[in-house]
């Protein structure tokens, strides 16, 4: 077959730059960059001007200055006289993370319970769960926090007439007072036994897996693990107690002039914040869980049942693993929401990052730009780290498709 020569030369014809998509694209991008740059530059320039005019110092040196104020709830030692603004930042950050961590755990538990209840075959349970979800989701969180704070405060007795609960637990407007466990100096045995128990449980779990693979027999992993982790230390403790040794003593709260002293105190601000966040977020998690479970098709469950798998096994091996893929991404964003929402602590006076740092520190130092930037950076970091972990997870569990 012959190949007739093309009639026209094969040089690429000229394209008017006005209509060349590449040139247009470059122009658009350049334009955008210029606009963004200009905006940023104006903002920075104005800020610098304004700060200079207002004679506000700038820079992060203030973090080393002595704070001079007190914080009532701090996991690290903090004293007005000696601690710095930097330390105040750390206190706020830790308080934020603590609320977030506790909130996430509790909200997950409550959320899963409600989500499963929402799908219950029991009509009244399903309706109750639905009402809970609808009511809670449609009322602003701030309002709920204020409500819990006021409700908690006004429902409780004053410090002088605390409710005394069994086991030296007291409840009053200043919070919940629990005995604070103190480890005696010679109680090294106890954590050791606990560690041994956990190690044993892990080892047993591995062993059980091997046995199962070899013989098909299933060992009672959960029961043994519970025994090892909880039972063993308790037994040792009991033994020591019998011998007249006290490995753990409790510092009990006692009445002071105004208030109970000593013990472990859960502040009402903290309780209201955690309560509000948990109840609010759990409603969203419940919806996520419900959607996740419903996303596993009926056919999957039926196939498992048809194979003779029992309902518990079906749930564990077939439904939950598949539901989790659907649940985890929105669940993570709920976790992020909870963490971000913990900034509402400012409304109930719990000293979280926003309250201490963006509130008190900003006011005492006047360094708005630095403080706001640091605070936002913290939240942004949390978000980005979580998002990238999530992406990794998603890639790992993504279903393999053709």
């Amino acid at each position, binding site marked *: 077959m012959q190949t007739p020569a093309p009639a026209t030369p094969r040089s690429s014809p000229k394209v008017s730059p006005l209509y060349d998509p590449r040139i247009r694209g470059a122009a658009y991008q350049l334009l955008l960059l210029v606009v963004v740059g200009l905006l940023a530059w104006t903002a920075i320039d104005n800020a610098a001007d304004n700060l200079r005019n207002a004679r506000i110092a700038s820079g992060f040196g203030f973090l080393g200055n002595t704070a001079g104020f007190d914080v009532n709830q701090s996991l690290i030692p903090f004293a007005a006289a000696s601690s710095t603004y930097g330390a105040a930042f750390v206190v706020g950050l830790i308080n934020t993370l603590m609320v977030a961590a506790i909130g996430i755990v509790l909200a997950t538990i409550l959320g899963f319970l409600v989500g499963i209840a929402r799908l219950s075959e029991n009509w009244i349970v399903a309706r109750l769960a639905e009402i809970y979800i609808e009511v809670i989701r449609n009322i602003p969180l701030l309002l709920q926090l204020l409500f819990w704070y006021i409700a908690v405060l006004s429902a409780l007795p004053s*410090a002088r007439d605390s409710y005394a609960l069994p086991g030296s637990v007291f409840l009053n407007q200043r919070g919940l007072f629990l005995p604070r466990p103190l480890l005696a100096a010679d109680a090294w045995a106890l954590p050791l036994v606990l560690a041994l128990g956990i190690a044993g449980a892990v080892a047993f779990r591995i062993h059980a897996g091997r046995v199962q693979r070899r013989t098909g027999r299933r060992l009672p992993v959960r029961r043994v693990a519970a025994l090892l982790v909880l039972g063993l230390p308790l037994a040792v403790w009991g033994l020591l107690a019998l011998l007249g040794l006290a490995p753990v003593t409790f510092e009990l709260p006692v009445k002071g002039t105004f208030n109970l002293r000593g013990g472990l105190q859960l502040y009402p601000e903290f309780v209201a914040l955690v309560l509000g966040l948990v109840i609010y977020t759990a409603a969203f998690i419940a919806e996520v869980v419900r959607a996740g479970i419903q996303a596993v098709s009926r056919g999957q469950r039926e196939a498992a049942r048809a194979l003779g798998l029992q309902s518990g096994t079906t749930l564990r091996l077939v439904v939950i693993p598949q539901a989790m893929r659907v649940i985890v991404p929105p669940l993570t964003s709920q976790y992020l929401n909870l963490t971000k929402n913990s900034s509402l602590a400012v409304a109930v006076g719990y000293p979280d990052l926003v309250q201490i740092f963006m509130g008190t520190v900003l006011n005492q130092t006047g360094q708005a730009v630095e403080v706001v930037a640091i605070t936002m950076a913290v939240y942004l970091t949390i978000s980005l780290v979580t998002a990238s972990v999530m992406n990794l997870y998603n890639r790992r569990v993504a279903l393999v498709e053709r």
Partner: protein
Amino acid sequence: QAQATLTGVKQKGYLACGSNPALAGFGVPDAQGRWTGLDVDFCRALAAAIFNDPTKVRFIPLSAKDRFTALQSGEVDILSRNSTWSMSRDTTLGLDFPAVNFYDGQGFMVKKKLGVTSAKQLDGASICTQQGTTTELNLADYFRANKLKYEVVAFASADETFKAYDSGRCDAFTTDASGLYSERLRATAPDDNVVLPEIISKEPLAPAVRQGDAQWADIVRWTHYAMLNAEEAGITQANVDQMKSSDNPDVKRILGTEGKYGEAIGLTSDWAYRIVKLVGNYGEVFERNVGQGSPLKIQRGLNALWSKGGLQYGPPIR
């Protein structure tokens, strides 16, 4: 640009005054949006001096937290909001405090039934305070100095702080003594609360302006002094028109019938006359808002004229 506050105000046609929206006696709007208070009247006095019209003020409610930024950013022309004049604020925040219009000090309020009579007995107490104030710092200092333990519960707004105290969250409530009296009015049962005698700090409350506009600072400063001098000279809102014909040289200089002192600060020579005529002298304003003519019933105390044993001392107008 920093010099031009007065020009700016004249151009706008009103004075932007940063004020406290929730401190009875100092600054508080009623349900119709009418503002009253000592700090509020100071702004009115300024407006009277500038515009001959005390209503040409816009009050901008500010919280303790954003008051200084509001001033720095130019949102308000003056911050008249019970703010303590301290060295760090004066030097690092880029502000000036031209004159002290209320000498105050931080105190405590407790529930009567606690039986506490002195702040020294507050060892181990929970204390409610507002965050971002000098109060918070003084509190820490005081308890440290007296080796007392306490638990601080800090809130973002004065409302929340007081409500928390009132509902029993704290044993004591601390703020400037003037504030204590004003807040007590809002208690569920005002008489169940007592103010403790200790004053643990110096709190010279002063209007603040941006640093770098000397003329504006002078206007603010001399507005206050004019009100003091008027009280000292016995010029009141009621008698100011008669006083205009007085031949007391002090009075003449104050009311601008002799000399053109007002023009030196960019105003008219009858500026002080306008202030007293339209707003009143310092004593009148004090009594009307926080003194015996008000529910607060605060004594003049440190805020009496120097001649009556107080600290309010108006430099001579001459």
